[in-house]
């Protein structure tokens, strides 16, 4: 990629937890050296199950949490080196939509106040007509601007969350499971809205989800994460899986077609704890293809057109 909008390099995030009278503090590597680039106008999906570090990665890229090591470049500037003031100004160009449409809106704020906040935090007032325009962009009536969040449905609230992200006309939006708490019918509405906004406004998205089917429908490229590391990057949404874990995720996604019933491949067990990672490949314990080498050595992500971190790819 010649000139990516976002370039993250070797991002590491270590969390320290616990520690007290009886327990020693334990360190957890939530993100273990992730590098990725996102081109302007691209939609990149990050998929993985709970604890894979996808949400931490999203927050690192927006510098909502500080990386333990690694750098993030946004449009050529190293975010980790920006001063607080510069970072705050830079935030006009990036935004986030959150998973839970209930707790992501202050219950005391009206819709108009929620949508004015992106301006107020920058010490401005929203331009006249901007709030009505934002509501229009997300398919809501201007009449809602005096409503409170608890008066609205989950889908409407998520539209408000999207409008808030659009307020300062950003280039880049991180979508952190924006539909995971919604009904499937509303999920499809929101996905359609996001596609349309991207087309109209030329947005770049990082789409975080646990639903590989949805990610493959919505994204140009798909990054698959397992226990804090990237195990595969699908160069195109419909590319076949090469990593056994990606294959297992595909098997676990059920198509709405009884003619395509799946017999589970032998993936058993659950994700190990990120506190005591195995020495070799993190997936080896659940992998049908694992060999002794997998249990001893950690495979690197290959530097090919279709990168995969596996000694025995499919």
């Amino acid at each position, binding site marked *: 990629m010649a000139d990516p909008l976002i370039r993250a390099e070797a991002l590491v995030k270590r969390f320290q937890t616990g520690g007290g009278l009886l327990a020693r503090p334990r360190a957890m590597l939530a993100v273990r050296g992730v590098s990725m680039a996102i081109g302007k106008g691209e939609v990149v999906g990050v998929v993985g199950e709970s604890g894979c570090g996808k949400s931490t990665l999203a927050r690192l890229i927006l510098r909502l949490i500080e990386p333990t090591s690694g750098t993030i470049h946004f449009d050529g500037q190293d975010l980790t080196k920006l001063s607080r003031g510069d970072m705050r100004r830079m935030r006009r160009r990036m935004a986030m939509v959150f998973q839970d449409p209930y707790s992501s809106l202050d219950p005391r704020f009206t819709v108009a106040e929620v949508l004015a906040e992106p301006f107020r935090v920058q010490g401005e007032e929203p331009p006249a007509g901007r709030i009505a325009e934002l509501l229009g962009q997300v398919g809501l009536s201007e009449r809602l601007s005096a409503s409170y969040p608890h008066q609205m449905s989950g889908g409407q609230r998520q539209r408000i969350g999207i409008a808030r992200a659009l307020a300062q006309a950003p280039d880049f939006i991180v979508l952190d499971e924006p539909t995971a708490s919604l009904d499937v019918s*509303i999920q499809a509405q929101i996905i359609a809205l996001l596609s349309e906004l991207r087309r109209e406004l030329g947005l770049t998205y990082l789409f975080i989800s*646990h639903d590989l089917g949805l990610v493959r429908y919505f994204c140009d490229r798909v990054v698959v994460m397992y226990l804090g590391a990237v195990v595969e990057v699908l160069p195109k949404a419909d590319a076949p899986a090469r990593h056994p874990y990606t294959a297992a995720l595909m098997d676990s996604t059920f198509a709405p077609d009884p003619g395509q*019933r799946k017999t589970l491949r032998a993936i058993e067990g659950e994700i190990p704890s990120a506190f005591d990672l195995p020495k070799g490949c993190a997936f080896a314990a659940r992998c049908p293809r694992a060999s002794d080498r997998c249990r001893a050595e950690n495979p690197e992500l290959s530097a090919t057109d279709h990168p995969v971190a596996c000694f025995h790819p499919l």
Partner: protein
Amino acid sequence: MLLSVENLGVRIGKVEPLSSLSFTLDRGEILGLVGESGSGKSLTAMAVTGLLPLIGGRIAEGAVMFDGTDLSKLPEDRLRPYRGKRIALVTQNPMTALDPVQRIGDQVDIMARLHLGLDAKAARARTVELLTRLRIPEAVTVCDAYPHQLSGGMKQRIVIAMALAAEPDLIVADEPTTALDVTVQAQIIHILGELVRERGLALMLITHDMGVVAQVCDKVAVLYAGRLAETRAVGPLFASPHHPYTTALIDCIPREGMARGSLTGIPGLVPSVMSYPSGCRFHPRCPRADATCERTIPETRTLPDGGIVSCHHPLGGDHG
């Protein structure tokens, strides 16, 4: 027929959130009960398990025939032997279904001791056997663990083991995998499917995910705003859905190779119980609705394949 719900209507206070619902379920079968939130799926589960009084509701009309007995007519004390023993419930959230201060083994044992009258030793042997069957590694050790020591997927298996321990005829599972990771969801769905075939159980699976329905169910009842839209065998339902709502729900799931922009969702919202629309309750969101749909409640029609559909303008052409 093990379970036959006939023209069921449920009342809570002054409102009737569920009306004229009929479906059947036999041993060895999995029935998928689908619809958006607010369609009445969980109320149906509560009606079948006799738990409506918990939320101040009651069965106002119709019958819940279970193995020849109408459960809706039984007083609470005669209903109790059915609940847990012959009809088991698996809820959505395994985190709250288990007692945090009791060991896993004891919680599963008690079901067999209570309902089958086994002694402690025999009950424990059965528990270990069940946990092993549910592919829980080191079942003996897990019996001594407390719920917080297990992952969400493990806990949901324990809840299923508790449901199975009394050797029920019918399991009602209310969104049993919604809170779980996808690979774990797939495992649990498969285990449930296997158990139904192998033990001749009947499973009523409540879900909002048409993908899960297509993967594991034998027949499907689609609910919308407290009424039955369509109920049919799973093959024909997906091959040629008759109710526009069924089609819309299926189209909400992205499929392999689906063109960008073809996922549009269903416009609008499920109406609340307080404001059910007149006529067909789906008409404000339906692309095929006309003046008839606004005025008249569609009659239920039996299809040649034995299915039932309730629509003035069904898809599929040959009837209407």
